[in-house]
């Protein structure tokens, strides 16, 4: 109460000029002592050395749409490598006259993702829409029903990357959640099964999982039965990612207080309802940031499928670079790939931040 009286008679002064505005900020952050001032000056000097030549290389002296021969005569970047080889980089060995199919499939996939990012479309329609979308995509990629069949060995480039990552995430997430719940189970059999799974998978690098899926796994299959290589890689990615998701989700579950379980119990909700309606929505929300971290690294890790001779977008780019005509432009090609990967990863992390904000309910 005394505080209140004091505050009415208190005068509010403006902070000193040096504390605010551009000058204040510069002083506060860049020149607040001699050492920081020195660092600032050094940094500005090195930026001055690096940036102008870089701009010159990338934009001034560069070529964007030309043939390989024209590139030999310039000092700058030869971005032409990308448009000139776009078909192969994006679609790899998919038959040229059929490449509209993976293109359409990718556009459809992006449209579906864009559609479902809006929380208002998370309703009963979402599942049938995705099922229909997946069916159409599968038809476009594989063929049949009037389209020539393209076997999965020819699926390559960006569609392969996107497919492996998207289905990797979509498959791994629920599996990871189930594993996390299983690890908390009171039934010892389920609990130890989940612990063994999680610890085993986390103790093994993805590369070896991919090797196992492509080399060892077929040895165990009976004669005459083969399972598609892309599918095997896909399953390996799902199994691998799920173990990491499980541990992150377990962290989220531990953050939920006992009171929430008790409140759910005392309303008479059964285990499934309590988990689905009360515990998981809260736990999964808490772990959005680390989950997205895992999904992003899973996305990037799909590039490891090269070691089992699948041609993802990284590998098709490398193949392009081994073409004598285009040899020597690897900086341009890899920069392009970096930008491509960055766009997808940034979109994911940006979306996760938005989602987190939208789901925030105070407290």
């Amino acid at each position: 109460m005394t505080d209140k009286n004091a505050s009415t008679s208190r005068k509010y002064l403006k902070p000193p000029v040096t504390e605010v505005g551009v000058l204040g900020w510069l002083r506060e952050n860049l020149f607040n002592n001699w050492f920081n001032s020195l660092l600032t000056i050094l940094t500005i000097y090195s930026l001055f050395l690096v940036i102008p030549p870089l701009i010159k290389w990338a934009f001034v002296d560069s070529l964007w749409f030309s043939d390989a021969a024209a590139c030999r005569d310039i000092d700058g970047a030869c971005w032409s490598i990308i448009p000139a080889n776009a078909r192969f980089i994006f679609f790899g060995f998919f038959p040229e006259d059929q490449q509209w199919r993976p293109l359409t499939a990718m556009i459809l996939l992006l449209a579906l993702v864009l559609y479902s990012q809006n929380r208002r479309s998370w309703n009963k329609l979402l599942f049938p829409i995705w099922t229909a979308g997946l069916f159409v995509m599968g038809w476009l990629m594989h063929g049949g029903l009037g389209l020539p069949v393209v076997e999965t060995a020819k699926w390559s480039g960006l569609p392969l990357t996107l497919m492996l990552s998207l289905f990797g995430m979509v498959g791994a997430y629920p599996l990871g959640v189930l594993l996390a719940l299983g690890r908390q189970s009171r039934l010892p059999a389920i609990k130890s099964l989940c612990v063994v799974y999680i610890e085993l998978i986390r103790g093994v690098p993805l590369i070896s999982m991919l090797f196992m899926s492509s080399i060892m796994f077929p040895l165990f299959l009976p004669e005459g039965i083969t399972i598609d290589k892309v599918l095997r890689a896909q399953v390996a990615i799902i199994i691998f990612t799920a173990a990491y998701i499980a541990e992150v989700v377990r962290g989220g579950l531990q953050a939920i207080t006992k009171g929430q379980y008790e409140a759910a119990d005392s309303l008479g909700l059964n285990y499934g309802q309590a988990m689905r309606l009360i515990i998981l929505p809260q736990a999964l929300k808490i772990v959005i940031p680390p989950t997205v971290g895992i999904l992003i690294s899973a996305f990037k890790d799909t590039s490891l499928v090269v070691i089992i001779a699948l041609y993802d977008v990284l590998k098709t780019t490398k193949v392009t670079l081994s073409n004598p005509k285009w040899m020597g432009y690897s900086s341009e090609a890899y920069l392009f790939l970096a930008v491509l990967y960055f766009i997808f990863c940034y979109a994911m992390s940006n979306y996760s931040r938005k989602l987190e904000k939208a789901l925030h309910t105070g407290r």
Partner: protein
Amino acid sequence: MTDTTAQKTDATIDQPIIELIGMHKWYGDFHVLSDINLKVARRERIVICGPSGSGKSTMIRCINRLEEHQRGRIIVDGIELTNDIKNIEKVRTEVGMVFQHFNLFPHLTILENLTLGPIWVRKEPKKEAEETAMMFLEKVKIAEQAKKYPGQLSGGQQQRVAIARSLCMRPNVMLFDEPTSALDPEMVKEVLDVMIDLADEGMTMLVVTHEMGFAKSVADRVMFMDEGQIVEENTPHEFFDNPQNERTKLFLSQIL
């Protein structure tokens, strides 16, 4: 459904709604509750008090099986609590519970907090559940907050929502575990007022509380627990003016 209720009204109307017979509970080796015998009649209001750690919470939590007892029997509205999960869920829908720390669901709006149980457990249509919920929010004088989230409400408001949430399940018994002890003093009254209204309507209530004013004006019986036993029980008048047990006297001298 109908045949069991019919049976119940005939045979059990005069029977206690809650009956604890020779009930014991251990946490590991620790004997928390020993030989608890308690009969609660319909519409009866019981206040339970006692020092910290005496087992008050544990006892009322056994009644809706948030804790498991190891010996003796607990019968709620004719249903005996055993390991049978169906019985446990049935008892839980008949018994409402209000916690010290409210335990509202922070990711749901107030209205959703209230309708969740009715929709999923009682299988009420959403619209009906929402109407009931608004009625109870009205009753705890907080209807205008229906669209907000628990985190946006004060402690007293949250506790009133928690009471309304229990009432939406149409319980026959309400358990309160120190409903006002996590509240700032100025909010205690608004919650007690709601509880008094509830008592006036004839709700069977078991209340663990140290609000002795509430005990005096509302309770039919006051119980004193210590070291896992019900040491003394009496009408509020006798209990406060003429305590028999030394430990009760000591306790009352400390808190009054």
